[in-house]
């Protein structure tokens, strides 16, 4: 089944891993992971708690150095590249524990992401008002994610679900070629889940998305491709129907339910 991905003609591969592995002082958290993430496709990485999903994200974004294997982003080997450089090359992630700047307002959070691409990050001699020209773009993203009402709130004062939405907004602000989302919908209400699912589907038309998600109905709904991880190794990969029919997946992950 791993074959089907590699041989499939279609959207180009933008991010790929070969034989990816990570040991934590003797304990193997990730082993032999091969992954191909395609442009304009949503790829889900699922698996039980502790399967190694977040660790794979940390390896791909270079927040952790792989023990084994190789990573290629947009045709370039990034196995030994620093994480900030990887982000600048177009691979941007969100975090499982929502990562925001708590004492900044919602708008400032988004603007921090916009500053670097706008070339407005190193000027220590300019007043803060020089950042005003990022307001329009920031407000556009805030609007798109339904956060307009909270634009001037400190991020720390948002509800848990809205913090996650804000994190997605700042991630999208960078307009990345590859988007890695670690459980973007965890802790969200039903409405927000639907909204975020729509947004992910929308933004995936012009970029690749790799997401960890426990909500399987969302995965079934929006993901083109599913990879199942268990104890650090891939046990199945393919479209949702194929994967969910796989007996190993059913016993290991989904239990008895289909």
């Amino acid at each position, binding site marked *: 089944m791993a074959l089907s991905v590699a041989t499939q003609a279609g959207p180009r591969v933008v991010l790929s891993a070969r034989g990816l592995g990570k040991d934590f002082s003797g304990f193997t958290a990730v082993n032999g992971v091969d992954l191909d993430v395609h442009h304009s496709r949503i790829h889900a990485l699922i698996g039980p708690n502790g399967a190694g999903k977040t660790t794979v994200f940390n390896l791909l974004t270079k927040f952790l150095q792989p023990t084994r294997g190789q990573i290629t982003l947009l045709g370039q080997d990034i196995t030994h590249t620093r*994480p900030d450089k990887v982000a600048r090359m177009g691979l941007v992630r969100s*975090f499982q524990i929502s990562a925001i*700047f708590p004492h900044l307002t919602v708008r400032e959070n988004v*603007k921090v992401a916009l*500053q670097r691409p706008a070339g407005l*990050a*190193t000027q*220590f001699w300019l007043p803060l008002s020089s950042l005003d020209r990022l307001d329009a773009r920031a407000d556009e993203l805030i609007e798109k994610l339904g956060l307009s009402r909270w634009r001037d709130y400190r991020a720390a004062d948002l509800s848990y679900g809205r913090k996650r939405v804000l994190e997605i907004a700042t991630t999208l602000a960078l307009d990345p070629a590859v988007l890695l989302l670690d459980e973007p919908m965890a802790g969200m209400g039903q409405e927000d889940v639907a909204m975020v699912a729509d947004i992910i589907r929308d933004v995936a038309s012009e970029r690749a998305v790799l997401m960890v998600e426990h909500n399987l109905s969302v995965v079934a709904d929006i993901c083109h491709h599913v990879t199942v991880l268990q104890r650090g190794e891939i046990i199945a990969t393919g479209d949702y129907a194929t994967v969910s029919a796989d007996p190993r997946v059913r016993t290991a992950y989904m239990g008895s339910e289909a």
Partner: protein
Amino acid sequence: MAAKSEPIATEQVAAHPRAGQVRLVLLVIALAALLAAPLFLYPIFLMKLLAFALFASAFNLLLGYTGLLSFGHAAFFGGAAYFTAHAVKVWGWSPEAGILLGVLGAAALGLVMGAIAIRRQGIYFAMITLALSQMFFFFCLQAPFTHGEDGIQSVPRGHLFGVIDLNQPLNMYYFVLAVFVIGLLIIWRFVNSPFGMILKSIRENESRAISLGYSVQHYKLGAFVMSAALAGLAGGVKALIFQFATLTDVTWQMSGEVILMTLLGGIGTLFGPIVGSGLVVTLQNVLATSDFPVTIITGLVFMVCVLLFRRGIVGEFCATKLGKMLGFRTEN
């Protein structure tokens, strides 16, 4: 759109609409007081206050606004004092050129020390800066140009821009005041700039800043060098005030003293380090003429302050209702 209920921290006090004007008035009063101060107090004492206030403010740029605790800032303060004193006395440079050399020298030292230390976190960062500044101390002890235990004495104050005679105490005072105000303006701008915004975001969530593509080490190093340069500005001016550059200013005790001043006043506030240094310097001056051991008393004051107001004097004020109404903000 239906308004959803949202848990908000309700005890937040909004700044009064005219808070900006009130702050401006307070600022003008403070400036007027500084302008008139030499009519009532010894200029030399006031200048010492200003030099240490600038030093502590420079230090706070790093601790308060970048979250890095340096235990080696004496190297920049005392080092610049040596550079300025040597340039002015031995090479016959003008005071402004001498101070500029002190600033550049401190910045260069900061670049070297920072580049070595910046990758370390927390206590390791503090220990490496301490170790490096101790190395610099031994260099100053041995290098011939510093004259070891004697220091560089009778440094001439000279004429500012070739015209203003700095040997006149009032001229010197207003020059130091001008340097102090300029130094604070630089800090204020630095903190409230696009760069300052990135520094703030790094302090709030470093991983997130990295994942947005910021090379956080470079930003931290930038702040470190700026802090070192401004500490150097304070040190260079101090050498001209006392006409003396001494080993005392490069000791680890001096690095400790500036930490104490900053914590006492309140880190991450623009005025905290000024108040803290003012308190410590005044205390030292008062106790110098008495029989009390200075270090024990300042240590006790520090302990009491830490127990009573952990945010520092200015930090506590900012957290009061009045402080919030006036729109004073702290960085935590």
